[in-house]
């Protein structure tokens, strides 16, 4: 039988062998990314193990979680990230105002390349699968050990192959696909699994959509996601990097531990209801729920495609009087593009708050919910207390669903 993408990527990195699910393999990484929290934590562990120099791996450091710093702890961590970059001569350190949310910045600046392994101190590293790059989210100890030794212990996962067919209908987006899969499969079928997407439906999805899909699948507890890179992905990456890379697509007869076919035409708008992202239902079954806040942004849905969809709905209209709308473009490149296209003016005139690119409202760094309030967000998690009070409720949906809810005051 043929091979999956993760098999091929690992075979290239550590030698072709009979990879077995559950077994542990030591792997290298092509790229590592740490945000300010991860950098500060990683430094602490590097000190603990007495590492004085870093293994030569391309590294990117971006402060994105709590920017600009609102409390002293965050300011101190951001200083640590800056100091770390200076101490080790990390050229790819991006100061606030010059990058945005790390996952999006890595993609748009050409750091994410097909066939490579990128490891980050953040669970949403799965996003890199949009370009056929194996993205793995880790804690700070894993990161420090990788930076000190050049090695990462990888438990080979079971692999789920999902054949995408057809094309999404108007008003349905990649977020709905992710919520549909999370709801149908649940964490029981996804924890520690690798998910690979291939088939004719892939080429109907933009890179932004693929990034959203891979990002959101993280919430099922997957090891990672990969989308088979096509011409669109190759052109996207080639326009952004001079570095050579080897893309991998699955063989026609690739072995998967489980196979699934998803007809994109049949996906309908979905919503994750409180308090887990895998608690997904069709939008129509929760229509009418009143909201206090709407949020459009995050590493899941703060891309230009998302902002265009939301702005088209909000153009010339006002956000419902009982609702606050927060819009956070995912990167400064997107922020500038949204400005050039007049999208920020539309948001501003509709009564929305447009913030700087940051994880912000998604992680409860600002835009907090008071007890009893209800929010609908394009972000990725609706756990209790995620966006403020543990007595607030969070619904997750696509930019289209959230924009309509902001206008009408209800889902």
């Amino acid at each position: 039988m043929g091979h999956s993408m993760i098999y091929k990527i690992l075979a290239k990195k550590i030698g072709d062998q009979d990879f077995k699910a559950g077994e542990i393999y030591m792997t290298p990484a092509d790229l590592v990314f740490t945000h300010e929290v991860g950098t500060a934590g990683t430094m602490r562990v590097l000190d603990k193990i007495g590492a004085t120099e870093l293994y030569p791996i391309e590294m990117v450091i971006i402060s994105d979680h709590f920017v600009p710093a609102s409390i002293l702890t965050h300011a101190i961590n951001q200083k640590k990230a800056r100091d770390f970059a200076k101490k080790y001569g990390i050229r790819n350190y991006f100061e606030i105002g010059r990058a945005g949310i790390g996952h999006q910045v890595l993609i748009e600046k050409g750091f994410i390349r097909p066939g490579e392994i990128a490891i980050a101190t953040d669970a949403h590293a799965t996003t890199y699968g949009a370009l056929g790059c194996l993205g793995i989210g880790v804690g700070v100890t894993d990161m420090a050990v990788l930076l000190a030794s050049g090695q990462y212990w990888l438990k080979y996962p079971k692999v789920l192959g999902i054949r995408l067919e057809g094309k999404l209908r108007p008003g349905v987006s990649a977020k709905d696909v992710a919520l549909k899969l999370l709801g149908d499969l649940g964490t029981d079928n996804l924890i520690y699994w690798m998910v690979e997407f291939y088939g004719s439906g892939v080429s109907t999805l933009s890179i932004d959509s693929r990034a959203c899909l891979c990002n959101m699948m993280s919430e099922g507890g997957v090891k990672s996601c990969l989308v088979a890179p096509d011409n669109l992905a190759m052109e996207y990456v080639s326009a952004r990097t001079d570095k050579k890379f080897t893309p991998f697509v699955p063989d026609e007869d690739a072995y998967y531990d489980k196979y699934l076919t998803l007809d994109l035409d049949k996906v309908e708008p979905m919503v994750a209801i409180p308090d887990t992202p895998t608690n997904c239902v069709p939008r129509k079954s929760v229509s009418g729920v009143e909201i206090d806040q709407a949020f459009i942004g995050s590493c899941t849905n703060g891309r230009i495609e998302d902002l265009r969809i939301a702005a088209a709905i909000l153009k010339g209209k006002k956000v419902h009087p009982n609702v606050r709308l927060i819009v956070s473009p995912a990167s400064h490149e997107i922020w500038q593009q949204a400005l050039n296209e007049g999208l920020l003016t539309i948001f501003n005139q509709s009564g929305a708050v447009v913030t700087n690119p940051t994880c912000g409202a998604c992680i409860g760094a600002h835009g907090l919910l008071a007890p009893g309030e209800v929010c609908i967000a394009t972000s990725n998690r609706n756990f209790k207390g995620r966006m403020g009070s543990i007595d607030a409720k969070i619904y997750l949906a696509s930019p289209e669903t959230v924009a309509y809810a902001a206008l009408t005051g209800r889902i």
Partner: protein
Amino acid sequence: MSQVIKKKVVAILGDDVDTDVIFPARYLGTFDEQETANHLFEDVDPSFRNKVKNGGVVIVGKNFGCGSAREQAAMALKYAGVTMVVAVSYNRSFYRNAINNGLLLMEFENPEDYQAFKEDNQLIVDYASGIIKNETTGREIRCLAPNKFILDIISAGGICQLIIKNQSKNGGKLCLL
């Protein structure tokens, strides 16, 4: 790692306990061991820290530690005193972070065995072979036995200790093997 652990069940939690409730995001800036423990379950059950301060086993449902890859969730449990967590399943990043920090994790072979425990049950646990004897009820529960490399990490007390220990056989270099 052959020693047997004798501890009581100090808490039983349900499914999908996420890292936001284990360790709220507003404290993400801190990595001080004791400080992480101070915020364990702060928003949902501040009394939890008292229950585990003298050690003990926490029994949990499926997908424990889901959500963020924040390492402080595993650190907070360990430094608050938790000896071991036994789960139906773990979220992968929590699983890795806990092992790397030397926190003992076990996983039921049969998910229904989650029901076989009550608070204060006295347990005798053989981690390396994956067997838990519930002395209070007399039942023996099987868990998945840890992989050899994971056993090496746990025996060393965490991955940092392992990599330091391995230095001598690798000419002073920091290596996982």
